[in-house]
């Protein structure tokens, strides 16, 4: 639990570093802080410890998720050098809020008491509301922030009502107490409260991870938010949310699988179908990525539906593959749109922005191609093994019809991922050579290499968890 304490302290330290004359120190300091927290999270590797009066539980699984979240944050922060050039930006505050939100994410990942789940969700969400609206003069950013805020706190209210009902029926917020209650313990209230409570809690968290039919806020928010924070949101929030769902469903509520299994299956199918078909009709790359993130929530839900030991591995691997590829894609978009605004053109976030990109910038084209292939789940990339492992869990559980839907939908997804690749290599465009800062380039290259290495040697990560 060292990372929670460290990140909180580092966050406050960053706020005060912001008073220093030079802003140049902020980026390296933030990267250093996240790296330290990353290292510190492995202190508890191999042990199962309860922390803070049984509030948080540290296991290998939670450490793996923590590491993924911290890695995504590291990559996102390292792409953030544009803050330092922007006059109105307040980098110290952005970085501090990001670190605080990581604290919330880690709490969601390793909670043992439902109070911690709530506090973690809120720390993460409130931080995200602020980051979404951080482009204060931009009406789109404002609108996204308000939508996200109103919808997000609405979801929080629903989740809280679920928690209250669960407390009312089981008499405890502790996961192990809930587990023994579900598996036939002494009841305080009617079992109806248990089912209603679990349903509302699920709705709340599914909202946060943007699964259909609770996804309607996602495209607007992802499009309106500054691209960098969209990358942060679509990776960190999703990973943390699924870790929380996994912890709840695979530990406490396995006893009533017949109840939530059906609900999750329905949500999964709706998510997969709606997101993939809507993504096809998008003209904006950022909106397409929003629907793509919804569809990946659908694939992750398959692993949850078929909950078991394998689904833990699958979730960890899939989150890692998805996060790395998403950040690489958003990183390229960020470079391209900054290049456009540098040339005085209006920022274009549609597919056309990538027209002819690969001619003058083969490296950026390659990075984007690998990211898109990984998101589409083409062999020799990490995304393929992620999908493979997720589908295996469903097959082992015997849910074949779900598998058929998922495979069909990933075939649909190839269409909109390949549109980007086609635009880059086959379309004509005036994109000139883009100069990319060395560090930025290294991070993007590292993400690409990681995607390919995991695609060739998936056991590197799979054997760990």
């Amino acid at each position, binding site marked *: 639990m060292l990372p929670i304490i460290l990140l909180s302290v580092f966050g*406050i330290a960053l706020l*005060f570093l912001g*008073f220093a004359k030079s802003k140049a120190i902020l980026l390296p300091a933030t990267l250093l802080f996240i790296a330290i927290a990353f290292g510190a999270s492995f202190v508890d590797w191999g042990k199962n410890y309860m922390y803070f009066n049984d509030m948080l539980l540290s296991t290998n699984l939670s450490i793996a998720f923590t590491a993924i979240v911290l890695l995504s944050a590291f990559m996102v922060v390292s792409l953030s050098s544009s803050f330092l050039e922007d006059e109105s930006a307040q980098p110290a505050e952005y970085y501090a809020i990001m670190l605080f939100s990581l604290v919330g994410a880690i709490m969601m990942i390793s909670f043992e008491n439902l109070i911690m789940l709530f506090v973690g969700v809120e720390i993460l969400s409130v931080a995200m509301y602020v980051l979404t609206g951080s482009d204060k003069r931009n009406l789109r950013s404002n609108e996204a922030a308000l939508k996200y805020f109103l919808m997000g706190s609405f979801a929080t209210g629903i989740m809280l009502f679920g928690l209250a009902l669960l407390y009312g029926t089981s008499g405890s917020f502790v996961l192990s107490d809930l587990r023994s209650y579900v598996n036939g313990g002494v009841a305080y209230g009617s079992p109806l409260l248990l089912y209603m409570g679990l349903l509302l809690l699920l709705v709340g968290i599914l909202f946060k991870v943007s699964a259909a039919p609770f996804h309607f806020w996602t495209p607007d928010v992802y499009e309106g938010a500054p691209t960098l924070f969209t990358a942060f949101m679509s990776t960190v929030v999703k990973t943390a949310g699924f870790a929380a769902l996994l912890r709840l469903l695979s530990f406490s509520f396995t006893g009533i699988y017949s109840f939530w299994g059906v609900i999750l299956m329905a949500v999964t199918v709706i998510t997969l179908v709606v997101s993939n078909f809507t993504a096809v009709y998008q003209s904006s790359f950022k909106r397409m990525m929003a629907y793509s993130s919804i569809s990946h929530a659908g694939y992750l839900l398959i692993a949850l539906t078929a909950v078991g030991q394998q689904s833990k591995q699958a979730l960890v691997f899939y989150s890692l593959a998805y996060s790395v590829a998403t950040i690489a894609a958003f990183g390229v978009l960020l470079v391209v749109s900054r290049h456009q605004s540098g040339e005085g053109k209006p920022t274009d976030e549609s597919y056309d922005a990538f027209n002819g990109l690969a001619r003058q910038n083969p490296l950026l084209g390659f990075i984007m191609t690998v990211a898109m292939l990984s998101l589409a789940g083409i062999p020799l990339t990490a995304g393929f093994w992620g999908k493979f492992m997720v589908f295996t869990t469903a097959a082992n559980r015997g849910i074949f019809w779900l598998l058929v839907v998922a495979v069909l939908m990933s075939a649909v997804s190839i269409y909109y991922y390949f549109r980007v690749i086609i635009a880059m290599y086959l379309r004509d465009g005036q994109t000139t050579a883009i100069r990319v800062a060395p560090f930025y380039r290294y991070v993007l290259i590292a993400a690409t290499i990681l995607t390919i290495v995991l695609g060739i040697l998936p056991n590197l990560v799979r054997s760990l968890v």
Partner: protein
Amino acid sequence: MNAAYVPSDYLPVFIQLILALGFIVTTMIVTHMVGPKRNSQKKDDPFECGIPVVGDARTPISIKYFLIAILFVLFDVEVIFMYPWAVNFKQLGVTGFLEMILFMGLLLSGFYYVIRKGVLKWE
């Protein structure tokens, strides 16, 4: 402690309620009846002191008020964590005291940040 409440126990509550309502209603009626009434076009306009009405009544207020109100809400609510701590002060012992000092220290560092940002400067 086993006495069930009978309806007559609520009598004081009702008397209080009737008194409170009665006071409001009576004052409203009495002021209307007793006060002098002179109606005219000028009288019924807002701002009757000779200057023609200008602009909207909802003028923008300084953002300072808003910031201070928000900060008040934030710091004010943290007090609720001190009530249970104060009640159990003896049982919690030195550890509890140190933990509360840490908590207050975090709040204070936030307060210091607010001051350094110049939020509380009026000029």
